[in-house]
């Protein structure tokens, strides 16, 4: 599954999803429950704004010194006997991992949840050399067996599916015969997956945070699947976006706490696993060989630009979980594995404006995302920056909008033109006004009056009333 989801043009996707009542109910339910839970754990922690500032500071510091910390990380991984590979592109990352799989003559690979491997489209590369790739995160597992249905949420990838749909997928693909009870479904998946863990040649994981001072990686899950993926197979490959790094354990602890609270409203998740290199002598389990693949894939070209704050992201999805637009259109409407506000900012940066030019506009700029972000990414401001680039550099703005904005500039920069223009408004609107309102608007107003009345301009502008009143003329 590459970053781009091939499901038609933006409006087709939106229309389909607006008609998907189940998905919308599931998303709204998740958002409403999550909102209360998140506020609860934030309050319990106390001093949330100070924690956010600290987390932001940690992320900013790390990004400003990214070369240093990446070097430190790779040296420490190597010291512990691990292999480090810097991949500039998705292809380089995939090639490296494929080479490892070929060398190990791998037949079966188990994976824990990783957005970056979705971004680089790793699974088909491994399948093409005859590997069976098994996703072990329950949500990812469901999507994988359902003919690679794309994820609709960066933390809960199968959010758009209900338990009956999941039961049907299990019946169709796994010969499942039991009910749609989530406990039974999960038990079945667990039984299937246990066999895979035991027989896999390679385990592939993502990485929540790499720790530079020790060369460790941190994995945060509620299912414990990442522990099995890293404990049993002989070879472990961890794939990380190049920005997913912290200087020391101290910063890791702060960010994990921000992550679990923001992502799922939990003080801590069930499993937080820190792994350092391959198995040492005397260790009971762990891989014999460890590879760390650090993926750039467009990230370094964001560094040093006005979009750098987006690299502060710790993939908690708090912005997605409060977004009123995501609430109604769901993840698949974004056409990218990165959905919601973070997806609307990140997808055009990693994938270009041709595919994602609508996303920066799929926001009312309500700033719920910016407010929720635990590392203070100014998401709604970055969306405005995208719009500015689309207008100024990409020249992709509609002609009517450009003309309207030209008129705006003329009318608002000159008080006399403004007065003149607004004086004309009631007359200009007159043909469309009925009972003091516009029901069928012309031009750009049409989109408004599709669903709403538009007010008719007042016969007397406020400024006329005020002037008359000052003159002692006609106070009302």
């Amino acid at each position, binding site marked *: 599954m590459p970053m781009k989801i091939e499901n038609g043009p933006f409006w087709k996707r*939106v*229309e389909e999803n*607006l008609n998907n009542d189940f998905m919308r109910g599931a998303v709204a339910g998740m958002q409403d429950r999550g*909102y209360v839970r998140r506020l609860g754990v934030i309050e319990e922690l106390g001093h949330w704004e100070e924690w956010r500032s600290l987390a932001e500071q940690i992320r900013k510091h790390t990004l400003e010194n990214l070369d240093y910390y990446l070097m430190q990380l790779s040296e420490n991984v190597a010291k512990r006997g691990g292999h480090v590979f810097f991949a500039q592109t998705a292809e380089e990352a995939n090639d490296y991992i494929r080479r490892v799989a070929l060398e190990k003559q791998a037949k079966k690979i188990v994976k824990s949840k990783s957005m970056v491997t979705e971004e680089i489209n790793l699974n088909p590369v491994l399948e093409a050399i005859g590997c069976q790739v098994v996703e072990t995160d329950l949500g990812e597992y469901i999507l994988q067996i359902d003919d690679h249905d794309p994820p609709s949420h960066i933390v809960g990838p199968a959010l758009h599916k209900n338990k009956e749909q999941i039961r049907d997928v299990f019946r169709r693909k796994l010969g499942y015969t039991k009910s749609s009870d989530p406990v039974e479904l999960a038990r079945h998946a667990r039984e299937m997956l246990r066999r895979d863990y035991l027989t896999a040649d390679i385990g592939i994981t993502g990485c929540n945070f790499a720790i530079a001072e020790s060369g460790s990686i941190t994995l945060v899950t509620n299912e414990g699947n990442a522990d099995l993926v890293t404990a049993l197979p002989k070879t472990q490959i961890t794939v990380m976006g190049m920005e997913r790094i912290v200087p020391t354990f101290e910063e890791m602890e702060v960010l994990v706490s921000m992550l679990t609270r923001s992502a799922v409203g939990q003080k801590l998740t069930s499993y937080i696993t820190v792994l350092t290199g391959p198995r040492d002598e005397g260790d009971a389990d762990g891989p014999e060989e460890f590879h760390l693949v650090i993926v750039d894939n467009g990230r370094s070209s964001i560094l040093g630009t006005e979009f750098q704050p987006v690299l502060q992201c710790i993939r908690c999805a708090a912005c997605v979980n*409060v977004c*009123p*637009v995501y*609430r*109604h*259109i769901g993840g698949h409407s974004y056409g990218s594995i990165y959905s919601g506000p973070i997806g609307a900012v990140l997808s055009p940066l990693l994938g270009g404006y041709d595919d994602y030019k609508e996303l920066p*506009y*799929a*926001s*009312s*700029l*309500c*700033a*719920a995302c*910016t407010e929720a972000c635990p590392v203070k990414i100014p998401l709604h401001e970055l969306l*405005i920056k*995208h*719009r*500015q*680039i*689309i*207008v*100024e550099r990409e020249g992709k*703005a509609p002609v009517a*909008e450009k003309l309207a*904005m*030209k008129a*705006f*500039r003329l009318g*608002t*920069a*000159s*008080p006399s033109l*403004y007065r003149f223009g*607004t004086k004309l*408004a009631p007359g200009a609107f007159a043909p469309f006004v009925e009972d003091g*309102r516009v029901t069928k608007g012309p031009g*750009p*107003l049409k*989109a*408004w009056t*599709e*669903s*709403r*009345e538009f*007010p*008719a*301009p*007042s016969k007397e*502008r*406020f*400024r006329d*009333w*005020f002037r008359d*009143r000052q003159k002692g003329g006609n106070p*009302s």
Partner: protein
Amino acid sequence: MKVSLFVTCLIDLFYTNAGKATVELLERLGCEVDFPEAQTCCGQPAYNSGYVKEAKEAMKQMMRAFAHADYVVTPSGSCAAMLKEYPHIFRGDPEWEEEAKRLAAKTYELTQFLVDVLKVEDVGASLHGRATYHTSCHMTRLLGVKDAPLRLLEHVKGLELVPLPNAHQCCGFGGTFSVKMGPISEQMVDEKIEHIEEVEADYLIGADCGCLMNIGGRIERLGKPIRVMHIAEVLNARN
């Protein structure tokens, strides 16, 4: 105290009653109201659409128009938040940066001005009925004004104020979002109206005419018996 009113383009043109109520209310509380005729628009429609150059021209005009003012008061949380952004937008511009800072520092949203500067919470208003208040996003999140409108409304005689469920959620206005993303905006405003109906409010009160135009326009289209009022009109009501 002399206050300079930035009435906003929406009120100047469409919601003149909210503007009149603002003037009468401020005067009743002892202010002398000045209306600089050279004011136009805060620039937000252009700025938020990515037309920064165009927006800056409007912003410069606003800075010129209010250069003389001691206090700039505006009955819109969103426009006030935009004015507060000027220093950020003109950062490094030797000609305008200082003026932008001055304007931002002396700008207040109406309810913020009443509570924080005039130190009043009971303005002597009365309005009978059940009302709910829409907390507009820019006013609460960008301007940080959360309590002032509620404190003022709590003192309105006869008004039964009920909390709006999911109050934190955007009504779907978002300026050009409402027309560019019409079908999505419609779903958002419908959900807002469902919540307003849920609490059986007679009045929906707000402090931003953008949101009110959106929610009110949809309420009218659906023919719902809910009256939409700007908070200045409520605070100026005597019935």
